[in-house]
């Protein structure tokens, strides 16, 4: 965390530091909100698939506003690599650098912009701070609409790459670059709108940081930032010390890579000491032919969000906060892929970077972690030509699902995955107004067939997207965790897995978990079903009253109450205590007997 600029030795009073860092955080948030209010892609304004941050010239994230946790570790690389390319003195006021290739750290749709902050009349020839943001653009070319696909075999099929180019040079737009952007998208109006909105939001952030520097002076500001980074480390130190020391291990599988049906093995060893948390992913399978690969920075983002979840979930973070975290991901594996491996659905593997240590530690950290959840972003792209207007449409959405049960309560129904955050599910009424779709249902997936336990998992979501458009349309989707369902804890049931059913006009039903450009005729339905989470504890230990409540709220049938929970519900909808007791005893004996047999 050393800065090479000269810093005054004097220490700063803690109050002024607090005021300055609050102001920097506000500046990041203001820039963030600005982009959300003006973007043209729903994946930005509703999904909030973007982040804005203030990063110093050494790549330390000073303040960051996130819509999703998935960008928690990527902005530092965007700035550090940009500074490396142009040199510390290679910037002018008004520059905006654009990048989205492997240096950006996530799939190509996520376009980053980096803008230096200078102060007029300051005399310095290098910027002290940068504003950086990264946002998912709906379409950046590539072989299929929406750019990411489930069957690309090379990054060159996934869209255009912007290799750290100056979109603005000293405040003047580089028209050649803008023309290339416009020529390489299927949705130029939307894409140029997003580009303009993203650039304007950086301007706002730059101006706010200048205001702060003008008020306190650069030197004071730098001192405050140093103290703030140190504070991040101080903040987390006790939380790390409180974690249970030891070595833990977990392994799991990705369903497939979209090209072959082979499952992909991932694993992680977690070592906790008083001062450090080390995650070692050695043993994970090599990068794949299909696009489920994750670049290093994307995996690091998920690792960081996990680290925050087990330490101080609500604390403000900065680079110092992550100092105790050590990560080993061998290069060339599915969690640290190398160019030109395709990375379009990088969330499928990067989610595992958090999922593995989560699985290893959940039984040991019940106050921080639930059982396994539906994990996959379950992203969909639906598009076509809207016959109402004659315009092409394209909507990208993550789909929410069931979360795992906790040690002391049931899991949350229908929530976006850990890789998404303050991401808003689009209302049905807005979806139907904007796009030629009709929803047949938008419901909890009940009766719940999986995820039962002493505490029950949250249910998944069932949605029927029916094409309401004479010329039909198409759907692209990546629903991971279909074959290898959410994991449980302490004898709970696993979840049931994410899947899609295509209800054809001829009455046939096709089941799938990955689709690219699948045609949907007018009147045909894509039924999107997300998984329940995993249960916690033996279902036979569930309080019968809770079972009765679940029955009354139609989460379960009397048969599930009987067969899974050993609870007998009478015809008058009450618990038959005696019958329940004997049924539970019987079931316990049965399971003991079967355990003996297997031994």
């Amino acid at each position, binding site marked *: 965390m050393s800065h090479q600029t000269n810093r005054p030795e004097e220490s700063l009073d*803690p*109050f002024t530091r*607090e*005021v300055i860092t*609050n*102001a920097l955080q506000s500046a990041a948030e*203001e820039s963030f909100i*600005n982009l959300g209010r*003006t*973007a*043209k892609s*729903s994946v930005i*304004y*509703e999904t909030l698939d973007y982040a804005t941050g203030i990063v110093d010239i050494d790549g330390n994230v000073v303040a960051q506003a996130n819509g999703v*946790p998935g960008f928690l570790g990527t902005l530092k690389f965007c700035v550090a690599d940009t500074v490396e390319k142009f040199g510390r003195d290679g910037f002018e006021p008004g520059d905006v650098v654009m990048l989205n290739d492997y240096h950006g750290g996530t799939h190509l749709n996520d376009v980053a912009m980096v803008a230096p902050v200078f102060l007029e009349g300051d005399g310095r020839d290098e910027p002290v701070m940068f504003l950086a943001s990264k946002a998912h653009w709906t379409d950046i070319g590539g072989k299929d609409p929406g750019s990411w696909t489930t069957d690309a075999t090379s990054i060159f099929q996934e869209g255009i790459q912007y290799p750290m180019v100056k979109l603005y040079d000293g405040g003047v737009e580089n028209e050649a670059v803008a023309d290339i952007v416009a020529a390489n998208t299927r949705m130029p*109006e939307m894409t140029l*709108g997003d580009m*303009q*909105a993203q650039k*304007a939001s950086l301007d*706002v952030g730059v101006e706010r940081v200048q205001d702060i520097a003008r008020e306190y002076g650069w030197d004071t500001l730098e001192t405050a930032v140093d103290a703030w980074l140190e*504070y991040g480390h*101080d*903040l987390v130190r006790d939380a790390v010390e409180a974690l249970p020391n030891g070595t833990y291990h977990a392994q799991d599988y990705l369903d497939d890579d979209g090209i072959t049906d082979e499952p992909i093995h991932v694993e992680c060893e977690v070592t906790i000491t008083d001062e450090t948390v080390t995650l070692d992913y050695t043993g994970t399978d090599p990068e794949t032919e299909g696009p489920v690969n994750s670049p290093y920075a994307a995996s690091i983002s998920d690792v960081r*969000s996990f680290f925050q979840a087990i330490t101080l979930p*609500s604390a403000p973070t900065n680079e110092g906060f992550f100092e105790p975290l050590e990560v080993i991901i061998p290069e060339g594996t599915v969690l640290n892929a190398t160019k030109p491996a395709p990375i379009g659905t990088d969330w499928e593997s990067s989610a595992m970077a958090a999922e593995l240590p989560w699985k290893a530690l959940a039984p040991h950290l019940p*106050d921080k972690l*639930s059982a396994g959840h539906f994990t996959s972003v379950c992203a969909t792209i639906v598009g076509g030509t809207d016959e109402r207007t004659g315009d092409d449409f394209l909507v990208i959405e993550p789909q*929410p699902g069931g*979360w795992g049960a906790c040690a002391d*309560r049931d899991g*949350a*129904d*229908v*929530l*976006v995955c*850990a890789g*998404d*955050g*303050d*991401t*808003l*599910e689009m*209302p*049905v*009424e*807005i979806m*139907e*107004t*904007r796009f030629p779709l*009709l*929803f047949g249902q*938008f*419901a*909890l997936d009940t009766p719940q067939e999986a995820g039962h336990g002493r505490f029950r998992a949250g249910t998944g*979501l069932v949605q*029927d997207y029916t094409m309401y458009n004479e010329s039909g349309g198409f759907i692209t989707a990546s629903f991971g965790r279909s074959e290898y369902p959410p994991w449980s804890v302490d004898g709970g049931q696993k979840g049931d897995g994410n899947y899609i059913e295509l209800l054809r006009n001829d009455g046939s039903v096709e089941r799938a978990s990955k689709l690219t450009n699948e045609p949907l005729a007018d009147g045909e339905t894509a039924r999107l079903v997300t998984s329940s989470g995993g249960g916690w504890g033996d279902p036979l230990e569930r309080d019968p009253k809770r079972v009765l409540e679940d029955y*009354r*709220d*139609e989460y379960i049938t009397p048969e599930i109450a009987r067969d899974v929970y050993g609870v007998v519900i009478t015809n008058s909808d009450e618990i038959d205590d005696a019958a329940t007791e004997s049924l539970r005893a019987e079931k316990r004996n049965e399971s003991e007997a079967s355990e003996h047999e297997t031994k």
Partner: protein
Amino acid sequence: MRENNTRVAVDIGGTFTDLVAVTDGALSLEKASTTPDNFANGVIATLEKSSVPQSAIDQFVHGTTVVINAVTERNGERCALITTEGFRDVLDITRANRPDMFNFRYEKPEPFVPRRDRFEVGERVDQAGTVLESLSESAVKAAVEEIRDRGIDTIAVSYLHAYANPEHELRTREIIAEQFPEAYVTLSHELTGEYREYERTNTAVLNSYVRPIADEYLTTLESHLDVNGVEGNRYVMKSNAGTSSFEQARQSPIEMVESGPVGGVFGAARVGTNIGEPNVISFDMGGTTAKTSLIEDGNVDIGTEYWLESSRQHEGYPLQIPVVDIVEIGAGGGSIAWIDQGGSINVGPESAGADPGPACYGQGGTEPTVTDVNLLTGRLNPEYFLGGEMALDVDQAEAALEPVADEFGTSVRETAHGILRVVNSNMANALKQVSLQRGYDPRQFAMVASGGAGGLHAAALGRDLGVKEVIIPRAPGQFSAWGMLLTDLRRDYVRTWVRPFEREAAPAVNERFAELADRAVAEFGEEDIPPADVSLELSVDLRYTGQEHTVQTPVPVGNDGTDSTVSAASGETLLTADAIGATIDRFHDRHEQAYTFSLEDPVELVNVRLAATAEAAKPTIEPVSRDGTVAGATKASRAVDFDREGTHETTVYERDSIPIDEPVSGPAIIEEPACTTLVHPGQGFRLDEYANVRITEETQ
């Protein structure tokens, strides 16, 4: 408008229930303890304590916490929901977001209607309002039968796209009326004509949930007023900064959710327009929170994206009703200063409240609060708190700060400075959030500060923000109640109607406005208010095609397309083609102002909005005449610590003795019973003809 009569406003606050009365232009104030067990008792107590005889009251305006309290305490009524088949779970699904995104045990908000009490019926309308499946009346009947059998008599009805075609909701109400006439029924489209099914359904459900409690409360109050001979008009304050009759409030009680705080914002707007400062930032700092809102051109900012109980950790519950846009933060006189795990100083949101209160109250509080700091720096007078009703204990305040000072290895005095800097910075950020962050330059605004603690911090915040001036109105401690006296009857209407916004659309858009205007005329008519007394204000929510979020843009109205309001009786075309062009120009400007850019893209209409107001009788703000001299208003002097501006021997003035229009140089302290105002070195103040304190920077 009748003159020379008595108007009374009563506002229920967290600690006190305030009464402000104006009789023939003269102001009188009263307060009583708030009575959470039965709020009506506190209201009645202030009425009985007041020097104004109840039988003389010509107009009674009331701001009440009864609705928000029923929600917070979860003691509303069990209710049922009837909704479209396939959609009963929208209350569980919510928007599925995780605001506390690193919490891997996130808990969703519990719906106000359990799943078992939600009934699905066959019916379907599309976004254009076309009926795709007609209402299954047998399913509605079966649902009503079951609801009745369960002993539930409050029913919310919310169908998909009901805003676009309310036929099925209306028919459902008829069926319920035939089968179960005693039931309270709320139809979603009558509360809001906007799309977003979760938001609209939750609004309908919460309206049902609080309805019996609100009904009972209003009945109690009404019978008290009847018994005591209050014959004048009775109004309830709504969240849209307007009032309604008790009768209308019974139908849509959820509109009273922010009944109290909006009085202060409206009051600030009126103080501003009265002195020719239509651009105002309101700032209200009480014991627990500080609230701020921006008023442009005399108009309070009203939005319909309101969330109850939302925070960074919790998504809360949406209400799609018009609510004044207020930013509220946990910074008040009782806010506690504390040190977090990383060794950093924080102030609030935890408050010592009224009991035990700040350490200096000597009621057992031991944690350092903002009030303690104000006392230690000489800003508060230990002998004149609440007009001398309570003596403050300097030693207790000092003892409370010592542990914090020790932790930082600094003095109590330095620590006091630090706490002031942090709490002021938190409030400054909130003030910037409503101004700078929305593209407004604070230098073009005056700040109107109120609340028990507002005067102590306003001058420093105003200087930091660079506002034109800081205004401390009269009765700053009861300002919300005072603001209520000046309000008019108001109803807001909205209809989602997405389409290109262009000149050719004028007749069709005009038709939508006319529908809303007809509703307004009809509903005011039910209260015997003729169309000639109803004025209409139009606006549209616009965006560039492809965007989601909109910018609310006022529409010039009338035949010449230049006015901002039009009488409902004028018979004029509400919206002309020329007005569409002018509105689009305004939209580009507003987009640029808020977001620093505008586009040449086509513009899309999302919502049409109409605000209908009927003027209520209200007091005019009268000039105050007063004899005396500045010297005569001087009470004492004391050493006041102004942090970086140094410690100064500072003259203390009694507000009610200060003569009108005499400039006084700071530093100064202005005392009055419910509020102390600080004027910093380099600033000066004068009382204007309405006895507002006006603080400005003195030119060097």
